[in-house]
C-alpha cells in the first residue's frame, strides 16, 4: 500500500462547511425576493394610472399597529432562538408563542382592512388597476405570513408536547430566517403601498 500525502489539508477537523439548511433557506429567500420584486415593480408601474377610483389616497389607512406587531415579532423570534440555543424550552415556548400571536394579529388586521376595502369602499381585484395590484402584492405577502404561521404553529405544538430541544436549534434558526424575511418584505410593502403610493 502506497500513500499520497495531502499537502493542503493539515487538520481534518478544520473541514467545516456551511449548514445546508441555512444555505437552502438563503437560496429560497433569493428566489422569493425575485418574485416580490416583480410584484413591487408592477405596483409602482401602475401607480396613478387608474381610469377611475377608488385611489390609494381615498381608501388606504396607515396600518401602524399592524406594522408594529409584525416587526416586533422578529424581536421575539430572535429571543426564542436564543432561548433554545441555551436549552431553555419553557422560555422558548413563551417567546415562540408570542411571535405566533403577533403574526396572527397582523393577519387579522389585514383581514379587517380588506373587509373595509371590499364592503365599504367597494374596491376589489376587478375594480381598477389599484385593486388588482394592491390585492396581489399585499395578498402575496399575507400568503407568506399564513405559511409562516402554519410553520410556527407546528413548532409550537411540538415544543408544548416536549419534542423540541437544543439539538433542534439550527432548524429553528433556519425557520426563523424565513420569518425574518417575511417581516423584511413587509417593510418594503409598507413603504411602497402605504408611504410612497399614498
Amino acid at each position, binding site marked *: 500500500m502506497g500513500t*499520497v500525502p*495531502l499537502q493542503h*489539508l*493539515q487538520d481534518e477537523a478544520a473541514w467545516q462547511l456551511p449548514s445546508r439548511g441555512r444555505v*437552502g433557506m438563503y437560496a429560497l429567500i433569493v*428566489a422569493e425576493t425575485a418574485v416580490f420584486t416583480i410584484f413591487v415593480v408592477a405596483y409602482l408601474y401602475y401607480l396613478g394610472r387608474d381610469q377611475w377610483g377608488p385611489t390609494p389616497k381615498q381608501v388606504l389607512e396607515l396600518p401602524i399597529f399592524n406594522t408594529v406587531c409584525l416587526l416586533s415579532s422578529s424581536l421575539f423570534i430572535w429571543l426564542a432562538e436564543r432561548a433554545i440555543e441555551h436549552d431553555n424550552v419553557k422560555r422558548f415556548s413563551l417567546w415562540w408563542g408570542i411571535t405566533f400571536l403577533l403574526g396572527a394579529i397582523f393577519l387579522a388586521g389585514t383581514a379587517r382592512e380588506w373587509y373595509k376595502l371590499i364592503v365599504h369602499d367597494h374596491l376589489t381585484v*376587478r375594480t381598477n388597476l389599484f385593486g388588482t395590484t394592491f390585492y396581489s402584492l399585499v395578498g402575496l405577502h399575507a400568503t407568506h405570513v399564513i405559511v409562516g404561521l402554519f410553520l410556527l404553529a407546528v413548532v409550537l405544538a411540538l415544543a408544548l408536547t416536549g419534542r423540541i430541544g437544543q439539538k433542534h436549534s439550527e432548524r429553528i434558526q433556519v425557520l426563523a430566517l424565513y420569518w425574518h424575511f417575511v417581516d423584511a418584505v413587509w417593510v418594503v410593502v409598507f413603504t411602497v403601498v402605504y408611504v410612497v403610493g399614498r
Partner: protein
Amino acid sequence: MATPTIPIPDHVEGAFDETQPPKFRGTYLEKVHGWVVTVDHKKIGLMYISYALIFLLVAGAEALAIRVQLARPENTAISPLVYNRIFTMHGTTMVFLVGMPILFGFGNYLIPLMIGARDMAFPRLNAFSFWISAFAGILLYYSFIGGLGLSGTGTAPDVGWFAYAPLTEKPFSPGHTVDYWAVSLLANGIGSIGTAINIIATIFSMRCKGMTLFRMPLLPWVYLTMSGLVLVAIGPLTAAQVMLLVDRYLGGHFFDTQMGGSSILWAHFFWIFGHPEVYILVLPAFAFANEIIPVFSRKAIFGYPAMVAATVGIGFISLGVWAHHMFTIGMTSFGNAFFTLSTMLVSIPTGIKTFNWLATLWGGKIRFTTAMLFSVGFLFQWLIAGLTGIMLSVSAWDWQLHNSYFVVAHFHYVLVGGILFMIFAAIYYWFPKMTGRMLNERLGKWHFWLMLVGFHLTFDLMHVPGVLGMPRQIYTYQADRGWTVWNEFISLGGFIQGAAVLVLVYNMVHSYFRGAVAGPDPWDGWTLEWSTASPPPDYNFAVEPVVASRRPLWDLKHPEDPDSAVE
C-alpha cells in the same frame, strides 16, 4: 502534526471502488414502486433525463409537423389552428420539458458524484421537484384533451411560447388553453427553483474533505452559477404567471389594455426570465464541454480560474440584457444603446471560454470518440450562433430582422447546434457511468454525421429566408416569394436530424442490453465519478473520498506526478 494520507493500492485498477451493489430481486411492481418513492439523486437524475428524452421525441415530432407544413408554398398539411398549437407546444416543450429537465437530470446525477458526496443536500426536496415538474409536463399535454373544457373539443395553447399579452387575456383566449399553459409553467417553475436550491446547498455544504471551491471540477461551478440564475430568473416568470392567472380568473387588469394594463410589462417580465433562461440552458452545455474536452485531449482544462470567472461573469451580465428581445416594441434611444452594449458584453466572457477550450485542444492528444466529435461540432456551431447573436444585438440590424426566420435560425443554432450537441456528447460520455454499458461507437458516428449534416442543412439555410423577409410563426407563404427552395431543403434537413435522433434511440436501447461492459472508468477520466462502480452503488462511495487537487483520479493514477504537488 501527522500528515493525513489517503491509502492507495499498489496498482491503479485497485484504486477504484469496485464494491458491487446487492443484486435487486423483486417483482416489476416492486421495481416501479422503488423508482416512484426513491429519493436517490442518481435515480431522480435518470428519471429527469428519461422524462426529457421522451418529450424531446414529442417536441421533435412537432417540429417535423411544422416543417411538413412549410415545405411547400400554400400548403395545407395541417390546419392554421393546429399549426399555432404545434409551434407553441414545440417551443414550450423544448424549453421547459426538455432543456431544463435534462440539464437538471445530469446535474442531479453528476454533482454529488463529482464532489464526493453521497446524495444531494435535500433528497426529499429533490424528489418533490422532479415529480412536480413531471406533473407540469403531463398537465401541459393534457390540454390536448381538456383544453377547451368542453367534451369532445380538445385543444392546446396556441399563443406562442412567449405568450404575449393581451392575446392571452380572457376575451382573446377563451376556454382553458392558456390556463393549462400558465399553471403548467408555474408548477414547472416551482420544481426548477426547488432543484436550484438543492444544487446550491449541495455544492456549498456537501463537498468531500479537501474539495475546496477552487478544487471543484468545473461542472459543479457552472451548475452553481446556473442555479443562481434559476433563482433570480424563474421568480419573475412565476410572478408573471400568477398575474396572468389573476387576470384570467379573478378579473384583474395587469395585462388588460382596456383597463390601463400594459402588454409591454408582460414582455418585460417574460424576457427578464427569458434571456437568463437562455444562459440557464447553455451553461450546462458549457459544463459538459469543460469535462469532456480535457479528457479527450488528455490535458487539464486550460485556464481554470478564467473559466470560473467567465462563467460567473456570464451569469451576471445575462441578467441585464433582456430587452434586446424588445427592440421593435419601441424603447428610448438610451434603452436601445444600453441593451445593445450589454448584449455585446456577454460575448467577452463567452469568448474567453471558447479560447480556453481551443487552448485545451491545442497540442493535446485528441481522441475522436463520439462524445468528442459532438463537442468539436459544438465549438464550431456555438461560435456561429454567437456571431449571429452579435449581429442581432445591434438594435438597428434587429429592426430589420426581428421576428424573421433569421432569428429562428440564430436561436436554433444556440439551442440545437450548441446545447443539444453537448447534451448528445454528455449522453455518450456518461451513459457508461449511468448504465454500466458503453454506447455503440459505430452507431454513434452515424448519429453524429447524420445530425451534423441535417443540422447544417436546416439551420444554415434557414438564415436565408429570414433575410429575404420570411416572418416566424407564419402558417404558409405564396410561391412567388422566392422562399420555396430554401424551405424544401430546410425541411429535408429536419428529417435527417429526425433520423439521427432515431439512431440514438436505437443505440441507447440496444446498448443498454447488449453494449460492452464499461467498467468504472472507460475514458480514463480524472473526476471522482469515475472512481466508483458503473452504475454507482446507492451510497456512491464505499469510503468517503478525500481530495488534494482538481483531478483526484489523476493523482491516484500518477502518484509520481500528482497535480497536488504543483497546485
